[in-house]
């Protein structure tokens, strides 16, 4: 009741004030009428008392007091003075901006570029780093669990670990009120024609308890459906899948949907925006983690051999991160001992120092965040710099305008307008401009968002970048800050203006010493542009270095063909036969030069198995060995060079002498200074017969582009191991993309049941590893060019303004016999001074930032003199061009006209 009263009072107050502001004329007229009525009645009263009319009217007015003062007081009583003033300033500003459309357009466009770049970048940075998962309750108490241990003296960090470890942590800790195991994977969803490879969230039933989300229909799965060991095959659909595949029909509940190898029953539909644990890979469906893991490996919950699950926890109230970390680290030590009981080869805990790190859920903020995350932050910073440059430009334009309006401003000051009012007016004007720029900026950001999305969140195509509250709020804040920043300079300038000089000065005088602020702004622009361009050049060169890096195999001609078996029960022999048939069919495809079977693909997976070498105690201590199982044509297919001995041959088949090819790195680690050919390796156990080294292959990079030499490879012939799994690698003549479709068409008919073929060019597999450099190169270049353009416009406008101011002087020079080239040189020299100073300062900033930029580069020093020289040259050329245009115009000045202008 009281609340309702308060609201109604507030509403009537607001209505009254609004009417007072926006119907100002009507309100004023009413006040006039009201007061006149009062005076008339008072006069009549006096007349009735016997005073003559003139005297009666005079007395009435005396009794009333000054009419204007009463009016003023009444206006005050309406409580709208500030509002009224703002509205008046707004009207004034709008009139002013409409009178100068060119100026307005320049300012709005400049701000739009700055604000747009930031809005778009904010969308990315926010999503990758800051925004908590949708519906997540109390995000501050939720952490992701990372393992940290030393491996061969080097620290390793992992966020994927064994499901068994998750069980250990869950049972051996007391700090957490909730924990969930999650995994985000790519699965074939659907059957037949409808089958699509999409992202699916594999989660424990406890996952849903972290959120305030409710299924739109049906329900989430419960602990019975996620029970050990095998769970129940059920699936919760995401909104996208529900809408696109089922047209939002409610009768989907109870229907069957094939997810990977699982025939699942649909039990519910998740709400909009509920996209699983990884915001960069929005999930289309949710399945129980036990139901997924059991068919993959039925011992997944007993042993520590398959690290894949991720863990999220919610700390109990009052438990600090430090305390929770200690609790988990303790649990890890217990778990480590348990693992060691199963696998005596594991180093002791005192050697490996296992400990746990708790970090925010976002992988980009975790301790093992990739280079990409750092580059994204850098680019966010770069966007901010672009905005600064834009602001400097706008401030410069506004200042130029303020200088042109000096006399107007001085007159208004002389007429009694307070400086505070004047500043307020200038600020209102610039904030209005900034808001216009903000609106345009959001449109620019929307347009740029598409580009950014493909660069940063390739899988996040379900993400709308701009149309959400956080981003819009951000854009609005940026616009207002930009408005105040840009308005402050001319406003302070106006406030500090000396009245008398300003009034006395002609348009001509007094501008040169006054342009110091403008020079400073111009220098800042130039310097920041240099900084960004240096960054751009460094990233471009890094990208080139990375792209031309020899990986130990060719990328473009290689095509990977995966097979996914579904809806069929094949015996081991049948699987082997299928592999062989696929290999034969692939070899026969025109355009395929070589084809090979393999078990692992660089950048996708690595496999390691224990082996023994006579005379060496522990092979493990010499390095991290990975095994590659490959058929005869493997080295030819990949383009991996055999340096000594031979590759695999047709004779290396089952029953023939066992052979192995080792990488150069492996050879020198195992048999330093000796000939590796003919050496003996014993697979699995030291009682096995010798596998003889027959060749040495070049090293390959298989995890990241920078991991040169960290992993050591050896190769075993596919035919001698005869595994039941296996995928194909093909080598095309030229680009493998050209044969991708043919390969799919030719091989798909060989697949039994609902099984299918996946075709992936090697380029697509390697490319994500290039992402950080490509991102850096693209964005720095984009923003660098933007910055340079803005700086050039700024320089141009300042020089043009100066030239206009100096028309008289230049005219005089021409009249005194100066040549056009002299005048041009005079003006361009002015521009050059700015450019050179900007280059020096910008280069200094870039050198100072070098230590932080260096780790993001590849094969390139952050102090590359060539880069600095090229950037300096670019700036000089652009500055020369930007000042030559007004300079050229100055040469066309007709002295007789110029001398006559004021």
């Amino acid at each position, binding site marked *: 009741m009281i609340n309702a009263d308060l609201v109604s009072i507030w509403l009537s107050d607001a209505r009254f004030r609004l009417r007072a502001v926006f119907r100002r004329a009507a309100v004023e007229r009413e006040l006039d009428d009201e007061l006149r009525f*009062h005076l008339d009645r008072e006069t009549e009263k006096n007349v009735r008392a016997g005073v003559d009319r003139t005297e009666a009217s005079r007395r009435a007015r005396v*009794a*009333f*007091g000054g009419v204007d003062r009463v009016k003023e007081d*009444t206006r*005050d009583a309406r409580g709208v003075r500030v509002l009224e003033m703002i509205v008046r300033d707004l009207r004034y500003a709008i009139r002013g901006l409409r009178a100068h459309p060119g100026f307005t357009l320049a300012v709005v466009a400049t701000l739009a570029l700055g604000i747009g770049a930031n809005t778009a970048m904010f969308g990315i940075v926010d999503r990758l780093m800051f925004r908590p998962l949708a519906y997540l309750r109390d995000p501050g108490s939720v952490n992701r669990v990372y393992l940290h241990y030393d491996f061969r003296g080097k620290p390793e960090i992992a966020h994927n670990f064994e499901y068994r470890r998750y069980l250990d942590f869950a049972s051996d800790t007391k700090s957490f009120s909730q924990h969930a195991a999650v995994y985000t994977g790519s699965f074939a969803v659907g059957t037949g024609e409808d089958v699509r490879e999409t992202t699916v969230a594999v989660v424990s039933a406890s996952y849903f308890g972290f959120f305030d989300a409710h299924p739109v229909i049906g329900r989430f799965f419960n602990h019975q459906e996620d029970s050990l060991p095998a769970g129940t095959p059920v699936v919760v659909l995401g909104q996208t899948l529900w809408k696109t595949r089922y047209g939002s029909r409610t009768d989907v509940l109870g229907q069957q949907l094939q997810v990977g190898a699982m025939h699942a029953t649909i039990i519910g539909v998740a709400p909009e925006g509920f996209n699983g644990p990884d915001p960069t890979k929005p999930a289309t469906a949710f399945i129980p983690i036990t139901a997924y893991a059991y068919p993959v490996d039925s011992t997944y919950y007993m042993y520590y051999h398959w690290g894949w699950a991720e863990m999220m926890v919610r700390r109990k109230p009052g438990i600090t991160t430090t305390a929770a970390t200690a609790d988990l680290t303790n649990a890890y030590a217990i778990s480590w001992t348990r693992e060691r009981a199963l696998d005596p080869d594991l180093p002791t805990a005192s050697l490996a120092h296992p400990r746990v790190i708790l970090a925010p859920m976002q992988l980009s903020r975790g301790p093992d965040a990739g280079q990409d995350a750092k580059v994204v932050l850098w680019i966010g910073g770069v966007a901010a710099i672009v905005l600064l440059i834009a602001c400097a430009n706008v401030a410069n334009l506004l200042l130029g305008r303020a200088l042109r309006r000096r006399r107007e401003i001085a007159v208004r000051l002389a007429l009694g307008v307070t400086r505070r009012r004047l500043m307020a007016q200038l600020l209102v004007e610039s904030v209005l401009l900034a808001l216009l720029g903000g609106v345009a900026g959001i449109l620019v950001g929307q347009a740029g968002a598409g580009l950014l999305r493909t660069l940063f969140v390739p899988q996040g195509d379900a993400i709308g970048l701009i149309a959400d509250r956080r981003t819009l709020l951000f854009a609005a804040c940026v616009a207002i800050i930009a408005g105040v920043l840009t308005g402050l300079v001319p406003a302070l300038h106006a406030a500090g203006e000396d009245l008398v000089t300003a009034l006395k000065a002609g348009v001509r005088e007094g501008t040169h010493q006054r342009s110091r602020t403008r020079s400073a702004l111009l220098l800042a622009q130039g310097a920041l542009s240099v900084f960004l361009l240096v960054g751009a050049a460094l990233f471009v060169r890094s990208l080139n270095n990375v792209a031309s890096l020899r990986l130990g195999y060719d990328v473009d001609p290689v095509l990977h063909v995966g097979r996914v078996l579904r809806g069929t029960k094949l015996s081991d022999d049948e699987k082997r036969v299928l592999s062989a048939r696929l290999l034969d069919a692939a070899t026969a495809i025109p355009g395929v030069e070589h084809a090979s079977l393999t078990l692992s693909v660089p950048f996708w997976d690595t496999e390691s198995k224990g082996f023994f070498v006579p005379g060496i105690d522990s092979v493990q201590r010499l390095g991290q060995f990975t095994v590659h199982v490959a058929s005869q044509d493997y080295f030819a297919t990949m383009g991996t060079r055999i340096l000594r001995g031979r590759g695999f041959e047709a004779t290396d088949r089952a029953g023939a002498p066992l052979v192995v090819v080792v990488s150069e790195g492996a050879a020198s680690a195992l048999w330093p200074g000796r000939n590796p050919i003919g050496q003996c390796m014993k697979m699995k156990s030291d009682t096995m017969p010798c596998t003889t080294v027959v060749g040495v292959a070049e090293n390959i990079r298989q995890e990241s582009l920078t991991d040169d030499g960290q992993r050591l490879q050896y190769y075993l012939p596919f035919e001698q191991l005869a595994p039941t799994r296996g995928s194909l690698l093909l080598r095309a003549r030229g680009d493998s993309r050209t044969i991708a479709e043919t390969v799919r068409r030719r091989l798909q008919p060989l697949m039994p049941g609902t099984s299918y073929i996946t075709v992936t060019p090697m380029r697509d597999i390697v490319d994500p590893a290039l992402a950080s450099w490509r991102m850096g190169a693209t964005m720095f270049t984009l923003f660098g060019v933007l910055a340079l353009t803005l700086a050039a416009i700024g320089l141009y406008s300042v020089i043009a303004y100066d030239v206009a101011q100096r028309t008289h002087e230049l005219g005089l020079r021409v009249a005194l016999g100066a040549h056009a080239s002299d005048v041009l040189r005079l003006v361009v020299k002015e521009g050059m001074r700015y450019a050179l100073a900007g280059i020096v300062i910008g280069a200094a900033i870039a050198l100072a930032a070098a230590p932080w930029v260096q780790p993001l580069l590849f094969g390139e020093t952050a102090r590359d003199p060539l880069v600095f020289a090229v950037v300096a040259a670019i700036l000089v050329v652009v500055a020369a061009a930007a000042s030559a245009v007004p300079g050229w115009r100055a040469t066309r000045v007709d002295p007789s006209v110029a001398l006559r202008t004021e």
Partner: protein
Amino acid sequence: MTDAADPNRLELPQGTLDLLILKALSLEPQHGWAISERIRQVSSAALQIPQGSLYPALHRLERRGWIKARWGESDNNRRAKFYELTRTGRHQLDEETDAWRRLTLAVRLVLDMR
């Protein structure tokens, strides 16, 4: 004759103007001039609202929602702006009257002290 010269005139204590206006409007809607006349008459000319502060006060009260205004015909058939109490205004009047009574009572008690 100026108001200040009148020996029977009382200075209006701070904050009572609003109360007087509300009271004057409690019987029937009035226009501004009538409000000042009524207060003068009822108080036997001892209280004279300074006319210059009447209108700011009226607009302030209107903004607070205690009174509302509408245009109507005055007794001499002229258009005049009439003010009337709103529901919250009446409530406010009760409260302020009450507060005033308690205040004056307390002041009298102190002054009557022997």
